[in-house]
């Protein structure tokens, strides 16, 4: 028998839901990454999950992002489209937020370290202390594993099932 693996995309996703028996659906903070990305501006970092200081950010990648960097490793999982990641060294002593990623001016991004061209299902390391940038000509969706930072957006009431 031939099985069909159901993946989703910006153009084609279905949402499940919390069916409450004796509970409040808000306890589950239920959302859908593609729905969040479809409503987001390019490169907004919208938290879809949070566990103490850690977050997962849904990002709509469309066009070319600014340079960013973090003091800790992050990862980027492409869930729709194709994204080019470019990596550069970061100028010595460039200030970074204690946690999460921060913007980096063009002049602080130094030597080219490499590039990754990633499609749906591909997981890419965003290494600590290095500058990175995302680019995608068409709307793409990326999930970032990181720590909450100055640019993390929290919109639980807008993105989560509440009733």
């Amino acid at each position, binding site marked *: 028998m031939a099985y069909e693996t159901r993946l989703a995309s910006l153009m084609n996703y279905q949402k499940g*839901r919390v069916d409450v028996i004796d509970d409040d*659906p808000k306890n*589950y903070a239920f*959302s859908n990454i593609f729905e969040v990305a479809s409503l987001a501006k390019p490169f907004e970092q919208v938290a879809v*999950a949070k*566990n103490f200081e850690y977050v*997962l950010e849904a990002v709509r990648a469309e066009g070319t992002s600014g340079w960013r960097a973090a003091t800790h*490793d992050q990862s980027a999982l492409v869930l729709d489209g194709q994204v080019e990641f470019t990596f550069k060294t970061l100028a010595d002593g460039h200030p970074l937020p204690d946690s999460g990623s921060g913007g980096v001016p063009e002049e602080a991004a130094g030597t080219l370290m*490499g590039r*990754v061209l990633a499609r749906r299902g591909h997981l890419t390391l965003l290494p600590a202390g290095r500058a990175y940038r995302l680019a995608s000509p068409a709307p793409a969706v990326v999930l970032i594993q990181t720590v909450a930072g100055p640019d993390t957006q929290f919109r639980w009431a807008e993105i989560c099932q509440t009733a």
Partner: protein
Amino acid sequence: MTLTGATPHGEVHEPNEFGYKSFSLGEFHFSRDEYFAYVRWPTGHHVMSADAFLRALQRDVAWEFFYGIVNFDGVVGTVNHYGTVDLFAGRYNDAYRRAELDHVENIETPVIKATFAAILSDWTNEGFDPFASPEETGSAFGPKNGDNDAAITRHRVTAQRMVSLPGDEPLRNDDNGHPVNRMFADVDQDEPEVYAEPGFEAEVGSFNLFAYLSRSPVTWNPSVVSVCRESLYCPTTEEYILPIIHGNDRAEWFVQLSDEITWDVEDRDTGRKRAKVVMKAGDVAAMPSDIRHQGYSPKRSMLLVWENASLKIPQLISSGQFPTQPVDF
């Protein structure tokens, strides 16, 4: 025979007429016959199907008792205290608690782990793989027939930084014994294009996570593929029913990557039903820290389990310093 000198300690007893040894851990006693596993304690006794018992036992052993509570079913299970483990019967069951028939023993982790591993090894017959989906394994039943130690002692993937980086956990392929699963035959196997400048190969890295998961030979076995401080990506492939009911000691999050899972959610302490959570590709949901959950996956699916491995969390939550739900809005 005494397995260790600690108290409570584990003991193993002579094989019965079906060829299976029985085991004691403190005042708990474990035995099996052709179809069933039996658990006895001073105030009660319990029976489970042997296949369900071994599937649950397999997870508990492989995961080092995991985070929080591993319920084998609504009666027996373990609580991880990260150094010691509670072995319990009826502790998280309202009826047993009210009747005061529940029983708990706190056991040093190496002691319970050694005894559980010995039970798993003795009771798993040749051809039965407790990690495999029911369609992909032979029978757990019948009199003792060999063993399957290679399957029950599989390497657990724990990436230090990210799978595929130099010196870290390797990719899966046909040549290292990881063919694409029958239910993931349509998953793209193309790897990302990685161009690293000389000297930066250790930091410029990417791999096809979906292809990696399509080649997982096991079900319901979260394993670490990427690390951000104490934040761990623990994706897993799911088919049929989660063989344990996981009781949380912290919030954990699910990101459904493919297909669909239905979660049955109950109150952690009493088993009272709270909700059904239906998750489709792209859905994200938290499991709060005061519930227990069991998943049902009709087709093999990819689930990203996201954990915060901080050792400080259970204390913060149980002392009331942090709410049971992970976000407040």
